[in-house]
């Protein structure tokens, strides 16, 4: 007998990039995630997900209305995107704020997927024209207390998402760091595992794009960014940012995109 895990996926102020990234999941494939048992005996029942669900309009919204009652306290709420102030966003002829508030109140746990949801990200970038908030900030404001797991990244790697969900199904909430990120994926700095680290240690720095060498002087945020990109690689393992001759732009951190220019050298506090 398989157990159903109802899931509602809500899109706030997002670009849908997190959803598209999750579609790129290699093993499990996205078909495995949606239609098969993600782990034996347990099936994700994706009730509401605007980018892929068949239903539109009221037919789609009825699913949410129904879930808030019949699946109260049972469903996992995935939020992609930041939460802007009410006048800037509406869904189903309601403000986005009220929509999220109701969904959050009745959820069992919340996954903040992507940097916008976890920390505010791009919409919250200075001067934050829509007064966007991260999900944690929003919940605090509304005094809603629910377990929240942050899976930042612009976008997050599909493994970070599927791995976290599998962890929830098998063992419950994974070990989190002080920013509510699973330690499994965000425990180390890019810099610690970077394949160009030997260049850094030898002091060989790329001076312009396409040069050999460490990306540090081209603005690399690897010494400050927590993520396992260097050992995991992206898009079925074919490449990742630094391997492609780009500095890490620090997209997994709360300061993204405001820390400093992405292509300008930054002086790190943890630097000697």
């Amino acid at each position, binding site marked *: 007998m398989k157990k159903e895990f109802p899931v509602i996926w809500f899109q706030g102020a997002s670009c849908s990039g997190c959803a598209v990234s999750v579609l790129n999941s290699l093993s499990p494939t996205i078909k495995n995630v949606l239609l098969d048992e993600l782990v034996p005996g347990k099936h994700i029942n994706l009730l509401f*997900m605007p980018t892929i669900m068949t239903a539109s309009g009221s037919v789609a919204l009825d699913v949410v209305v129904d879930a808030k009652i019949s699946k109260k306290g049972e469903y996992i709420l995935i939020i992609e995107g930041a939460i802007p102030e009410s006048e800037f966003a509406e869904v189903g002829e309601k403000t986005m704020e009220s929509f999220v508030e109701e969904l959050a109140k009745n959820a069992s746990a919340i996954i903040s997927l992507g940097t916008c949801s976890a920390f505010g990200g*791009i919409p919250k970038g200075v001067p934050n024209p829509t007064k966007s908030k991260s999900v944690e900030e929003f919940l605090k404001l509304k005094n809603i207390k629910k377990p929240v797991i942050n899976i930042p990244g612009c976008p997050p790697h599909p493994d970070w998402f599927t791995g976290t969900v599998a962890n929830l199904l098998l063992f419950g909430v994974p070990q989190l760091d002080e920013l509510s990120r699973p330690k499994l994926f965000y425990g180390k700095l890019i810099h610690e595992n970077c394949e160009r680290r030997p260049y850094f240690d030898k002091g060989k720095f790329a001076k312009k794009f396409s040069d050999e060498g460490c990306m540090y002087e081209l603005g690399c945020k690897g010494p400050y960014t927590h993520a396992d990109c260097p050992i995991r690689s992206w898009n079925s393992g074919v490449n990742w940012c630094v*391997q492609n001759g780009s500095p890490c732009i620090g997209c997994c951190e709360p300061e993204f995109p405001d820390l400093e220019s992405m292509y300008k050298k930054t002086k790190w506090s943890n630097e000697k």
Partner: protein
Amino acid sequence: MTKIVIDPVTRIEGHLKIEAIVDGGIVKEANSSGTLFRGLEIILKNRDPRDASQITQRICGVCPICHATASALALDSAFGIADRITDNGRIIRNLILGSNFIQSHILHFYHLAALDFVKSPDIPPFIPRYEGDYRLDEKENTELTQHYLKALEIRRKAHEMLALFGGKMPHNVGIIAGGVTEKPTTDKITNFLWRLNELREFIDNVYIPDVIAVAKKYSDYFQIGKGCGNYLAYGVFDLEGNEKNYLSRKRLLRSGRTSTDLTYKTVDSSKITEDVKHSWYDDSQTHKHPLDCETIPKKDKKNGYSWIKSPRYEGGVYEVGPLARILINYISGDEPTKKLVDSVLSEFNARPDVLFSVLGRHAARAIESKLVADNMADWVLQLNPEEPVFVEYQMPEEAEGMGLTEAPRGALGHWLKIKNKKIENYQCVVPTTWNASPKDDKEQPGPIEQAIVGTKIKDEKNPFEIVRIVRSFDPCLACAVHLVDLRGTTIGKFKAT
């Protein structure tokens, strides 16, 4: 008289609401509303201009590469190196963008649009759904559902191709001002080529036949959703790098305008204006060229019903997208395009005017996928691992730049002004702003609105016709809703009601 409200319109990018007034079974009026505002252009202000290629990608996670491309072109022009991008740089940009086009088109047909025509298994997220007008037989439904799943893998592989040169996807790091970040290597070229071969096989043997099979069962949709009948494209995929004026460049998909009479006209970007009478922005700034327009959000506005503005060309309503591009290549005598279009039309024994329709848009998208994929197989072999991919430049104290290209969904323009080596102002006029625009100052409805008006709705509880029309445009709302603000108006003036 009844009002049909579809909010949210799902299986598109972003937050869109459609309202239709139906009288006697016929849509009399339609309103298209963008319901989310993020203000990306305000966020771009005062940043290092080079950051634009990263920030503008975050406008849209489905089609970030077109924004990376437009911003790189805009920065190249601002830095005075538009005519100096190396062949390797130009070709790798094309390969990254081309992979995104194919991915986007396949995703659109199978995962966004097809469920309006194909009845999939009775499990979430395939149910609930509108019920009634599903016309494929059981065998076809099963086969198309199998292809839906296969297409999930194929589109993932398109992203793998993209990442070979772009680093990662969504949001690549490869395309930057001056070219691209990394040299091509023979292993990457071969790796790209063989993934591409698999994609081409899918396009030829599955995607195009599936579009034709669906069209045969829903052939009335060659007459539904015509729209405004004017088409505009800036063109995309540079075949040369020495021409500074992007609209004069030799491109695989050419720039131009046309109408239902299929005569060719040129595009002059200075003739674009944006109206805001029905958008939530202050009326004082209506009907101006994007570069001259100051935008003041105004949500408590009597006539307003959308965060989207209304771009117009010489005051006329224009549709942008794959249909516009394919029509323009077709009438300007591009042989491979002509052959493909004529071969699809011969399946239906039809004339080109059936292309102005829901099915015409789907067919154009499939044809374009083949054109781009076939050409990428040649381009990737033109790369030279020994040659440079990046050109150095000096950051100017002050400059202006313009980047005109195409997103999978249609014509895309980025404009920027640099002052003190920072972005003073940045502006994007994107495809869905054209297609999903509300009524303009002259009360002319936007292309999607026009495509819905006049449509016969068989069942108001299950308004298949409306969602099929809307999705045929492949709307991207995250792209469409942005704020033009080139004169330093502060958002702080905006007081919520």
